[in-house]
């Protein structure tokens, strides 16, 4: 496996839960502007 693929996989491992968490917050924040 190439080094670039390993870098991409490492970032995916942390970004997937982070994006999920940010999505949860953004959807709740929408109530502020309703």
């Amino acid at each position: 496996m190439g080094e670039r693929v390993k870098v991409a996989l490492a970032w995916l491992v942390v970004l997937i839960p982070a994006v999920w968490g940010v999505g949860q917050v953004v959807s709740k924040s929408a109530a502020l502007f309703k």
Partner: protein
Amino acid sequence: MFLDREHSIAPQGYSRWRVPPAALAIHLAIGQAYAFSVFNLPLSTLVGIDKAAPTDWKLSTIGWIFSTAIICLGLSAFTFGRWLEEAGPRKAMFCAAVCFAGGFFVAALGVQLHQIWIIYLGYGVIGGIGLGLGYISPVSTLIKWFPDKPGMATGLAIMGFGGGAMIGSPLAVALMAHFKTPTSMGVAETFLAMGAIYFVFMMFGVFTVRLPAPGWTPNVARAPEAQTPMGGSARRAGHAPPGADVHVDEAIKTKQFWLLWAVLCLNVTAGIGVLGQASPMIQEMFPGVIGAAAAAGFVGLLSLANMVGRFVWSSCSDIIGRRMTYMIFFVLGAALYAAIPTTGRLGSVTYFVAFYAVILSMYGGGFATIPAYLRDLFGVMHVGAIHGRLLTAWSVAGVAGPVLVNYIREYQIAHGVAKANAYSVTMYIMASLLILGFVANYLVKPVDASYQWKGAAHG
């Protein structure tokens, strides 16, 4: 042994961009601590289930779980910082994972037996030690890998701590809903599941992290150089060159260390009290306009600003200098705090939210920029240990901030001030604290050359 420092040296061709995800895995996990409040209400009805029974714990009793964890964070960062520099990041991250996950498991036992002291010991003490170890473990490693942009690198990791609550909160809510039964709130099972999930996630960081080989330098066009506090790299007579190593025991004797301690403490005090009171504050300042759901959205938005600010401001500091970055925090922060009561009087929710979002971005930025500031002043050698000692400022601010906000508000209301106006004095006090921080930051000059590390022979 796999965890030893010498076994974590990167092989040739290892990309340094694999190290920030390792650091993020640790910080995203331990950042769950900021979301512990989601357990407060379920923990207060463990016996009564639908409503609190006489034997159920009070919210004030439960509140000490988080406070204990933050106090132990500061103490363990202070105590183990030096050990960490010798043991290496992999062993420190492993210990952090064992403590953090172990804290959840012990706390689950406390919930099952309904013994609050076991939860204090588990999540508070054992988990808190894991928080401190985990918080500082990747910092010096990242600075070694990114000597050309230390602010950005440490900002990335510390951004994870800000973002951890965004994962920890919905995860805990989902797990408690899954495990809840007519006779159980599902808290013990949730603690067990979260301990296991976070342990596996942190192990990813343990297995991924590497130290650069001795003599390694990044393959970049611009030669890496540390900054003076004023942002340049020029050396003045009598001063240590920017980035020159200072032993941790010498560093805490310098006035620069204590000035930065004050800078961090004042910046955090101004932000942390607001974070804890954000939901009731916006509802009380805009009665009839902002309800509970919108207030929850405001809290979420502040968390997001706190997280993004960590990366953006620390990256900016690589360009404009650490001292200038903090100057902006203190001047802009003081101006925005002073303007907050006016937004309330004008009834402008938009300005209120926007001002607070910027304030909280600078609160996060203050945390994220401090390791690079320390590196500029005291070098890389003991930056993790020095950072650990500086974090005691966080423990002090963690007590001072909420006390200032809560008690002044209560005092105002008790003396007949309307709830909508009860925060005005607090805001002006916060602005004053930031002006003090400005003075402390202004006084930071390069470290005297006599403190510079001259090798083991000189102790």
